[in-house]
């Protein structure tokens, strides 16, 4: 994820305007369509998953998640508008060449049976002609979502870490780094149940709750999902603050507001007094004038 501040701002503008929606829930439309449109992937009933990349110029990479042993078909297709004619096509995994078949005039396919983790990796198709075009497929264990930014919590509160994935893992394990630096310890074993709660909300979501937080609970936590072909991990960083941390800015802002309001009130009182003084003076002038007139008459 790009880390520049402006990008983050845009990200949150997106989020905040999305969330003005009432509880109509997420429409099916965008949920379905937020997959990348360019490469299409399908899964047919014989559990052969097909993945295709259309090459037009720039090199393209695609990640393919393989949760369980399956057959996979990878296709490189040449864009109709491309000028490359009759290229020489090679499929490679690492340095090893794989034989391919040509399904149609401008597409080349390899079929793979993924049965253990050695079959995962990076597969490249290279088209050589006047120019060289390439596409890369990364076959890997499904990634799990964690949180990149640190989670901020407070003493006495509880911390919640949620791990999600799109596929069904066999098991979830949570680890934490012991503060005396002895490496990772599985939380299941440590388990005082009034302190650590692990809930599996659904097959795809696992939730760790840490209750009655203290400063010692801060650090790094890991969530690991095991699939048939391997495991994947997500990292969480927990920070525990004391409640005085936000209290200081809070009091500062309240003091500022109080000062502003008093200043405005004083300004108003002062200007009213000036006005009254001004009025009094003009009244006096009027009085003097009106006294003048009869005197003159005399």
């Amino acid at each position, binding site marked *: 994820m*790009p880390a520049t*501040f402006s*990008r*983050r*701002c*845009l*990200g*949150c*503008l*997106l*989020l*905040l*305007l*999305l*969330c*003005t*929606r*009432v*509880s*109509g*829930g*997420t*429409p*099916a*439309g*965008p949920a379905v*369509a*937020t997959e*990348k*449109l*360019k490469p299409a992937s399908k899964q047919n009933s014989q559990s052969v998953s097909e993945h295709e990349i259309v090459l037009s110029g720039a090199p393209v990479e695609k990640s393919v998640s393989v949760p369980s042993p399956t057959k996979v078909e990878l296709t490189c297709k040449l864009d109709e508008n491309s000028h490359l004619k009759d290229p020489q096509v090679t499929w490679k995994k690492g340095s090893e060449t794989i034989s391919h078949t040509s399904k149609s005039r401008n597409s080349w396919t390899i079929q793979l049976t993924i049965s253990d983790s050695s079959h995962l990796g990076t597969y490249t198709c290279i088209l050589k002609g006047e120019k060289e075009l390439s596409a890369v497929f990364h076959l890997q264990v499904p990634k799990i979502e964690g949180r990149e*930014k*640190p*989670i*901020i*919590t*407070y003493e006495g509160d509880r911390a*919640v870490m*949620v791990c999600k994935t799109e596929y069904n893992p066999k098991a979830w394990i949570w680890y934490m780094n012991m503060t005396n630096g002895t490496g990772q310890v599985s939380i299941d074993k440590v388990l005082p149940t009034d302190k650590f709660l692990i809930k599996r*909300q659904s097959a795809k979501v696992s*939730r760790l709750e840490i209750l009655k937080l203290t400063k010692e609970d801060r650090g790094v936590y890991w969530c690991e999902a095991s699939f048939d072909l391997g495991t994947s991990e997500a990292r969480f960083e927990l920070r525990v*603050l004391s409640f005085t*941390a*936000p*209290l200081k*800015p*809070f*009091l500062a*802002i*309240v003091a500022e*507001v109080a000062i*502003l*309001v008093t200043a*405005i*009130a004083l300004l*108003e009182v002062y200007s*009213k007094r000036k*006005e009254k003084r001004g009025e009094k003076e003009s*009244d006096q002038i*009027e009085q003097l004038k009106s006294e003048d007139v009869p005197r003159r008459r005399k």
Partner: protein
Amino acid sequence: MPAPAEVGRAPGPPDGGWGWVVVFGAFLSIGFAYAFPKGLAIFFKEIQDFFGTSYSEVAWVSSIMLATTYGAGPISSILVNRYGSRPVVMFGGLLCGVGMVSAAFCTSILQLYVCVGFITGFGLALNLQPSVIIVGKYFLKRRPIANGLAMAGSPVMLCTLAPLNQFLFENFGWRGSFLILGAILLHCCVAGALFRPIGARTALVKTPVTEEGNDALKGKITEDGPMENRTEEEEGKDCFEKINQYLDFSLFKHRGFLIYLIGNVLMFLGFFAPIVFLAPYAKHTGIDEYSAAFLLSILAVVDMVARPATGIIANSRWVRPRIQYFFSFAIAFNGACHLLCPLASSYTGLIVYSSFFGLAFGMVCAMLFETLMDLVGAARFTSAVGLVTIAECCTILLGPPIGGILIDTFGDYKYMFIKCGAVMVLAGTFLFIMNYYNYRMLAKEEKERKRKEEDPKSVRTEDEGKKNWNKDSTQDGPELEPLREKGERVKKEMNGTVEV
């Protein structure tokens, strides 16, 4: 004491001076009221994970807040009628602060609904209406500009709150952020402190000047003193008149008000949904998340510029007398943008759409309250705005879910855009036609009035039924302190010019 010759040449609203400070205060206040519910969305994912609820349950927080802000409009109006703008806004600011601070200690989502939804929402309602009302009291000639500037607070606050909320969230988590946001909302009290009460254009003394007083710009005439005398005589109307004292239900007989109400209620059905669905639509057409967010930024920036610009245009000699037409045009233009949106499927097309949408959105928002003031006069505006916001509350909340249902049913965004566009074009046309009719009726009534002027009058007469609500003499309400009235000037509201 003013010389007798000065009677009949009372000062109008300041149209400047402290008025601009009031506009700044209103800018802050309105900005918080509109932008704050949207800005909270950054915290929703974290709150959802923390309480283990679904996304919709968390989104209810925002909806409850929005509903309370609009729904508590009449209460706001009643309080302003009774106490004036300043105390109400300051109390509203305090309430917002208290709401958010208590939200920082919440332990369940229901408590969040109450603290953030109801309490803070109510506080924001007490901010929004009085700010709009007091701008109308301080300005007449330059009112459209003042309104445009004050309403520009919304996009500016949104652009400020979004990164600020993100920063607070990353450094303090959601609880700490709510605490600090509570303190930030206290700035509404500062805005309220700036709302110096201003005298109404009421006659303290019966003047020999005839007053064709219907559209005369009065700050706020409370019917306290004289009303009480009268109601003792007419006991049948006792309760009704007491209610009318605080919230002017007779507005429902006001032609202009009804036109505005129907038109706006219709318009809001299609007003907010496109903003909500713009980013998902962009992602649907294959644009990445950050470029989609960029579209919304373009919208916000164009909106920010469009609002004061519209105010200036609406204030010009050519537009001001026919400001209702301009408003209808803005709404129809907005609708046309939405109707054309499905044709834009490339990123450049969407950028163009966002810019025009931002422009149209800004135009409509800048004139939203100005046109209402124009129709009912600043005096009855207090009650009018309350009644209008509670009516709009329903359609505002219905708009996005209906759009969502359309998208779900058809699986395509274009029907949602077509629906929004059609509704707004319809609303714009309706307003255009009805206002044409209204202008004509007003011109007729004006002629009638001029004809009646042949007869000498010593009392204000009750003219053609629609826009009048004269009382014989008035008592100072809470707003009438500094500026004492020495007489009254006839002002023609519809022409927007002041006859000196």
